[in-house]
């Protein structure tokens, strides 16, 4: 800031010279001064009206805030790590055969493949970690880092993460936090740098992979997981809307979106009955217990159709 005042003092003192000669510099520096003051007002006290008028944020920030924003709606997709936790809690065993082979990462050439598979490998990483398969988790960091670099989010998966990962490889909780923070950091970076396309595809890839885990487990008669699949109907609706909001084209992307719409048509046959129950709030614990009930009905036939469609969509991504 002092540098700007220094330049301003010098320029405005130099008015012995013809005015026009310095006018451009004066305008430029004044602009910089105003913008710098606005930028430094990033933490304004409540509604302070300064001499410069109301605080405004540069257009770039406003534009960047529109990520995943469609008609005022922001999309939210549940974490694939949480799906893996729910699968484990249902009593299902770990199955390494469900993972996308890590060597496949070398085969992906389009941005669609790279971004969706970054999501797929993130879900694989979470699944292996939940079941405390440390060696597999460490192995899957390699394709994750490779694809992260190619998608442009290598900073989120840098050497520091690898060191923290290795140093805490026996601490499942720490690893889960590192994975989630890395994906959160990547999501933040992509959204603020006008790359919502990649961010959306990472989420879509992770969601399909987690649903693939669930379908494979439900196939073996796990009723808990079967209902977890039925509960994904609204998430899929958000995901389809998200995919439509992304400004992108390409054969693989279009085929994927059509497949997701067909999947939603199948999910539309999943019915649910919601009943409101009054929630209870415990201010001392900063906790609200939501007691409403929701009964999901998904037939074996519909589950079978969904499983086939999910397998096809996954194949489209990982092939």
């Amino acid at each position, binding site marked *: 800031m002092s540098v700007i005042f220094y330049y301003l003092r010098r320029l405005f003192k130099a008015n012995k010279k013809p005015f026009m000669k310095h006018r451009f510099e004066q305008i430029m520096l004044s602009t*910089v001064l105003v913008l*710098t003051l606005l930028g430094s007002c990033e933490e304004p006290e409540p509604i302070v009206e300064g001499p410069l008028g109301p605080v405004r*944020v540069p257009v770039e920030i406003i534009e960047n805030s529109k990520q995943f924003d469609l008609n005022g709606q922001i999309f939210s997709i549940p974490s694939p790590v949480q799906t893996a936790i729910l699968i484990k809690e249902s009593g299902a065993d770990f199955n390494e055969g469900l993972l996308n082979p890590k060597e496949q990462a070398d085969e992906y050439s389009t941005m669609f493949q790279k971004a969706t598979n970054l999501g797929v490998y993130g879900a694989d990483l979470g699944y292996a970690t939940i079941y405390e398969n440390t060696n597999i988790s460490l192995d899957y960091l390699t394709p994750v880092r490779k694809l992260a670099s190619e998608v442009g989010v290598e900073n989120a998966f840098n050497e520091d993460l690898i060191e923290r990962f290795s140093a805490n490889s026996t601490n499942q909780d720490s690893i889960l936090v590192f994975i989630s923070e890395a994906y959160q950091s990547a999501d933040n970076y992509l959204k603020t740098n006008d790359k919502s396309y990649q961010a959306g595809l990472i989420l879509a890839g992770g969601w399909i992979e987690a649903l693939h885990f669930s379908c494979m487990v439900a196939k073996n008669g796990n009723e808990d997981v079967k209902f977890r699949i039925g509960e994904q109907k*609204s998430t899929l609706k958000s995901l389809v809307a998200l995919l439509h909001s992304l400004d992108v084209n390409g054969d693989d992307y279009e085929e994927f979106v059509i497949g997701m719409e067909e999947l939603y048509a199948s999910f539309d046959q999943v019915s649910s009955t919601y009943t409101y129950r009054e*929630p209870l709030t415990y201010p001392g614990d*900063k906790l609200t217990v939501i007691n*409403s009930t929701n009964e999901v009905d998904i037939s074996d036939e519909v589950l079978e159709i969904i499983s086939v469609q999910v397998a096809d969509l996954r194949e489209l991504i990982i092939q």
Partner: protein
Amino acid sequence: MKLSAKIISIALLFSGVVSNAQVTCDSIAGIAGNYLNKGTENSIYISDGQVYRAFLQDDESAEFSTTFFGGSTYRIAVSAGQREDYVIFDVLDEQDMLLFTNADQGNAPYWDFKVTNTIQCKVQTRLDPNKKSSGCAILLIGFEKKTN
């Protein structure tokens, strides 16, 4: 030559301003991130991996739908700056029944939700007009995992 040097300096300063404002939104995300694991014992909240951000002015609000899975506990953390009470958020069910508003809890910057059955929720976020008129608002969602 002298003029060019000044213009370059100006350009650098200008880019610094934009970057500074960007850092602001990022630093708010950092504050919200700290709320995600504040005051927890025997458990951690794992982020869903997404950062929900919106630039809000006056009475504008941002809304998103999310699924809360039954048998889980979630934490919603919000921030729009260093003060804890800038942001108001409401949680509504699929029938638009209000399940919670932090406005009743002094605009608490984070709150936990224990969910009995899987439900679809809408979360609406806005700035408290008495405390902040415009700015970047960040919302994070984490799910609870008991520590081993």
